[in-house]
């Protein structure tokens, strides 16, 4: 079993719904973007604008986990990589060693309305975001463990994201990767990401 995601760059319209729904689902503090969408232009004039949604790639050989001196970065048997915030010391070495820039340091408890205290929603969600530790996407493991899809997949209005078992050669994600030339970012670094992209 190895959970993985496929993102179809032809379908993605760059609406940032994934960015927003990730925040709503996981209650990440200000400035922390577990999912984000990069914009770039390619080719000569008239340049084509393309959106590149990025998140933690849940690498099968994660350099962040090897670099972590405390064992706070954990890889589950199903391939999901997450941070155990009770063990993290906030050294940020994982942020330096993650080639996908997927990690954020939560240096202090901060609300979205400075000077007005935390909202009840923030009080609830920030139980999962203690200050002084590093955080990152965990493929919505609380949803996946209930048989649901990650929030960014379930809520992508363009249906540009697929989620499933990469080890199962008959799964939808495996078939799409095979038939549509799916590729990984920075494949040459040897981290074997579990997020694949379909060319635009």
């Amino acid at each position, binding site marked *: 079993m190895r959970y993985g995601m496929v993102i179809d760059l032809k379908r993605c319209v760059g609406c940032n719904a994934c960015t927003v729904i990730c925040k709503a689902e996981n209650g990440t503090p200000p*400035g922390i973007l577990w999912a984000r969408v990069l*914009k770039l232009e390619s080719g000569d004039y008239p340049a084509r604008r393309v959106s590149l949604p990025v998140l933690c790639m849940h690498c099968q050989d994660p350099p962040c986990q090897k*670099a972590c001196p*405390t*064992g706070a970065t954990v890889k589950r048997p199903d391939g999901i990589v997450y941070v155990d915030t009770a063990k993290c010391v906030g050294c940020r070495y994982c942020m330096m060693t993650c080639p996908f820039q997927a990690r954020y340091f939560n*240096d202090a408890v*901060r609300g979205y309305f400075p000077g007005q205290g935390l909202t009840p929603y923030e009080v609830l969600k920030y139980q999962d975001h203690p200050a002084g530790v590093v955080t990152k996407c965990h493929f919505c493991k609380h949803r996946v463990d209930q048989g649901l899809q990650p929030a960014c997949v379930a809520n992508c209005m363009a249906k540009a994201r697929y989620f499933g078992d990469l080890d199962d050669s008959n799964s939808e994600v495996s078939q799409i990767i095979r038939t549509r030339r*799916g590729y990984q970012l920075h494949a040459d670094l040897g981290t074997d990401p579990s997020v694949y992209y379909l060319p635009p």
Partner: protein
Amino acid sequence: MLDRPFDYIGQDLRSTFRPQREWAQRRGLLLIAAFFFSGIGAGGWLFSLFLSWPTGLVWSLATVVVASGAAHLAFLGRPERSWRVLLRPQTSWISRGVLGIVFFAVSGVLYLLTGAPAWADAGPGGRLLLTLSAFGAVWLLVYKGFVFAYAKGIPFWNTAMLPALFFVTGLRGGSALVLLLAVVAPEGPDLYPLEIAKLWVAVSFGALLAFYLWATSESCVAARRSVRELLGGRVSVAFYLGVLAVGLLLPLAWGAVGLFRAQPEWAWAVVSFSSLIGDFYATYAVSKAGVYRPLAGDFRVAPKTSQR
């Protein structure tokens, strides 16, 4: 006024060269200080061993244990869990480095407790402790280079040259620390061998730095961008003023003059201090100039066939 984290969102959504921030800005400066103190302390220990000078040994050890230890702890987000960083030496360079600090501190304290005898006067136990502490100091000088070099996503750091650069930087800082102590201490050792050693180490540092910048700028586009940040971008003031002018040219020029004409002791104190400033800025500049490989770069080179 915007809360600080919002200021960075623009950088995070940029599809090109995103700078690393956490090890160079705000509390990240404490880590630079920690690396700096451990480097000059370890270098100072080696020079003090060479000179058989107990005062230098004590101050060098204190620089590593007290100054570097305090800066390391203050940098951590959760210092109360700091013991945990010792747990994973099998894979983590941070664990290996911190274990090295512990090893150095224990062997160094024991050596001092035996009276810090010179090699010729020491028994087998003293010689063993002297050797172990020297190994510990060398480890402290190089491990930071391995810590940085493990970051595959930051090509400016991902090079085998960094351990060598940090080794020479620490030696240079150590010689400056001992020279400074020798000037201010009532009964310091003879300054002349130190001045010569310091001059040579500074020349080696300059040559290695130039080679490092040249080699990395030839390696890939992100590393070239880091070199540009140093030579004409975000980090250029620190590089030209801190690393080159104050840290290298001033000590080199003064050191060269000192070879031919005796200088007053206060002048050596000034030169040592400027060398130390240069060392701090060298670590700072290398760290701050680090930019990640652009994620979007791969987008244009999507392979022709599936990767599974």
